[in-house]
């Protein structure tokens, strides 16, 4: 007897609906799965058999053939377990057949009959929804991450017995009350900008970065608070919109990452270690998984010890920073992951970390320093807008009173973002960091005095023409933070300050 149930598989971060065809026939008893299934699916045989038996059902002594259609797509993942088990139960007439077209099953079976969560559930639910599925059975863990998805009935089940009860509508499904639990935002978990002592300049630069989505580089010795600042970035950024949230969660779900903070609407912060491989940074692997740059989508990518990263690995960032996406090509197909992030990088001023320190002499030779700085290529530097040099804070008995809270910073960031959204509503882009060419002169109109100022900066402070473009972008954001429509001289002067650092470190060669 043939039964067809539906489930899904992942290609990149998108789901593809898969029909699981289960046929029971007379003959030598056996169990085989066909349809380009990888070992994780082949192993489902044993899990499904024991799971059915241990839940009090009988495993049919028949020749069982399971086909995963379309059979031409390579499939992997343990979420096929549940659909295969359901297919066998229906085919062996242990549970009733309902409307197979409008139902789907996404979970892993365990030997004691429990239904477990799987990775990548959210994108699969989204794919099934757009394919017209009305009811999805899944594990309780996955249920929470998928609550965002509206207009579809998601039924969490604990174990196979529980499932059968739900399936036959013998058990009431709980209302979606769980959403309230995660509705409140716990900023306190992330810390607050008021924790940071001194470093007001860096804090201000971070506010500008968050407001205009500019990439920034913090240069400072060990222990000045670079990591502390980066970790607190989400607290001054606007909450993710629902659309952004789903896009980000899809990626995190596929990578099997925890989703709690994103469910709260907080932008993700990714802090990969500098030993990271190319594939881990941009995505890849046997089963192509999103890398750190995609996990930082709509959030922050923080690269500490930037020059310690492999140079070739860093160069891979260039394209995603421009395009806001990464394409991973394989001979058979290519997969695209979104990667629209703010890059916050940090580095020591030299290998020993003391260069520029007031009290510790630097023990690096000029050549060592040059080699250290050369790890960051010109093109990459070019994509960084804000350079902040940080000094080591001295310990004081009384904590400095002049700290700004995240909330204060966030208030003006929100207004600045709002300005940008309104201004760029008819454009392809939505933030100041993306201003270039014609758009730049359109949206960053300068007074005669301001133009003269830039000319002076170009000559006196040896700021390259290229950097001047960047200065205008930053000035635009600073003006937005001030709620000004026109860029004023003060805004330009401040912007020059943040850009100038780069030429002092790397010479004017950029």
């Amino acid at each position, binding site marked *: 007897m043939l039964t067809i149930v539906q489930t899904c598989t992942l290609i990149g971060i998108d789901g593809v609906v898969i029909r699981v065809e289960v046929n029971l026939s007379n003959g030598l008893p056996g169990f085989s799965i066909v349809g380009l299934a990888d070992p994780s699916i082949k192993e489902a045989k044993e899990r499904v058999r024991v799971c059915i038996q241990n839940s009090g059902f009988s495993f049919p002594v028949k020749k069982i053939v399971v086909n995963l259609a379309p059979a031409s797509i390579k499939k992997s993942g343990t979420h096929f377990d549940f659909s295969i088990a359901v297919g066998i139960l229906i085919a062996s007439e242990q549970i009733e057949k309902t409307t197979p077209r409008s139902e789907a099953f996404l979970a892993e079976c365990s030997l004691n009959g429990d239904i477990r969560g799987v990775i990548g559930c959210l994108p699969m639910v989204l794919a099934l929804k757009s394919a017209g599925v009305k009811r999805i059975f899944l594990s309780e863990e996955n249920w929470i991450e998928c609550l965002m998805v509206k207009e579809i009935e998601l039924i969490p089940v604990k174990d196979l017995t529980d499932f059968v009860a739900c399936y036959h509508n013998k058990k009431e499904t709980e209302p979606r009350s769980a959403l309230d639990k995660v509705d409140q935002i716990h900023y306190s978990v992330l810390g607050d900008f008021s924790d940071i002592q001194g470093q007001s300049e860096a804090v201000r630069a971070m506010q500008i970065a968050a407001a205009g989505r500019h990439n920034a580089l913090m240069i400072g010795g060990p222990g000045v608070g670079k990591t502390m600042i980066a970790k607190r970035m989400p607290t001054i950024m606007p909450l993710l919109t629902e659309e952004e949230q789903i896009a980000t969660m899809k990626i995190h779900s596929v990578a099997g990452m925890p989703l709690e903070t994103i469910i709260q609407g907080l932008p993700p912060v990714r802090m990969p270690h500098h030993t990271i491989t190319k594939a881990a940074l941009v995505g890849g692997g046997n089963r192509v998984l999103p890398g750190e740059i995609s996990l930082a989508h709509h959030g922050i990518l923080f690269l500490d010890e930037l020059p310690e990263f492999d140079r070739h690995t860093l160069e891979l960032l260039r394209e995603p920073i421009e395009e806001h996406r990464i394409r991973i090509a394989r001979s058979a197909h290519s997969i695209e992951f979104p990667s629209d992030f703010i890059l916050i990088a940090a580095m020591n001023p030299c290998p020993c970390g003391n260069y520029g320190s007031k009290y510790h002499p630097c023990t690096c030779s000029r050549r060592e320093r040059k080699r250290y700085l050369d790890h960051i290529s010109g093109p990459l530097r070019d994509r960084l807008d804000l350079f902040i040099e940080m000094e080591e804070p001295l310990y004081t008995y009384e904590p400095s009173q002049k700290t700004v809270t995240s909330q204060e910073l966030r208030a003006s960031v929100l207004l600045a973002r709002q300005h940008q959204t309104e201004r760029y509503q008819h454009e392809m882009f939505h933030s100041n960091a993306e201003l270039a060419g014609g758009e730049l002169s359109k949206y960053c109109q300068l007074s005669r005095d301001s133009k003269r100022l830039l000319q002076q*900066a170009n000559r006196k402070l040896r700021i390259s023409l290229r950097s001047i473009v960047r200065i205008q972008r930053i000035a635009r954001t600073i003006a937005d933070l001030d709620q000004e429509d026109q860029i004023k001289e003060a*805004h330009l002067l*401040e912007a020059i300050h943040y850009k100038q650092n780069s030429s002092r470190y790397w010479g004017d060669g950029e």
Partner: protein
Amino acid sequence: MKLFIAWLNAKHCPYADLRFLIQHKDILETILADPKHGGYTDVLTKKTNQAIRNYMPDSFKERLEKQLVENETRILLWKDPDYPEGFYEVDDPPPILYLRGKGAFPPQRAMAIVGSRHVTRYGARATERFSSELSVEKITIVSGFAEGIDSIAHRSALQVGETIAVLGGGIDWIYPKSNEGLYYDIAARGTLVTEFPFGEKPFGHHFPFRNRLISGLSEAILFMEGTHKSGALSTIRHGLNQGKEIYALPGDIDRKNSEGPNQLIFDGAEPLLGLEQILAKSGRERTAGETIQSNSLSSLEKLIYNLIAKEPCSVQHLHNLSNQSIHDIVSVLTSLELKSLIHRQGNQFYRTGR
């Protein structure tokens, strides 16, 4: 004759012998006429006699001539008209000098800037400042071509005027390697000088020895940075023996690199406070200079400028002192910088020296 002296120099004959031969041209001529004769044991050392008897092989002569051309090097002997006056005063004056570069030699007026190879930004900034300010006054900057203070002094001097590098090895040894670019820059616009023959490695013991030449060329020595063990202190010692003016850059007492100069000040050296002071000592006034038009500054600019004039400040420090918002401070700083009233080194802002 020059080539023969160079031969004896390459054989490491004592300087005193070479000076004797240069002084007594008649003896030298007799030797050149009949090198095998020998027997000057009463005045020359055994080593020199040995070298004379072996005479200069033609292969050496050819190679030396080729090296002189390839390295654009000229030879200067003791008592030559161009031989620097100051070198007659030093211990064991070099009988032969190898010179490379288009700069004037001997210099009209010269001062040495010395210090350690490891630098702090403070030291680097002060070195740049004094090196370029003295160059503006047409004073040649002499230093030892090492990394750190020496290189900074040479570089800053080249931007305005001339510089002389006294090497610790043969003129064909570029050491340290990282200064290769600087080597050719000095060759183009300054002078490289050494007492060591071609191919002589820059051995460690050469450096304190050649330091007597650095002080010999200079009327004053400026010690910028270094611990109390710094090699630059040997230049100071030579300078004291030769009766030169010694200046030391005062530094923070908890900065390791300022130990040397601070101790020197304690011991009686002049604290290095500004260009005027150096010039006043030699009875001159500075030539260049402009005055601040402070009436053209806004009140906030004045406030910030005055704070920086008191002591170098970082943005954070200004923020704490002035109660102004970060963005106002930052804009004012850039504007003061554009007006060349302040400049920046690392995260500190300094009043531009005037």
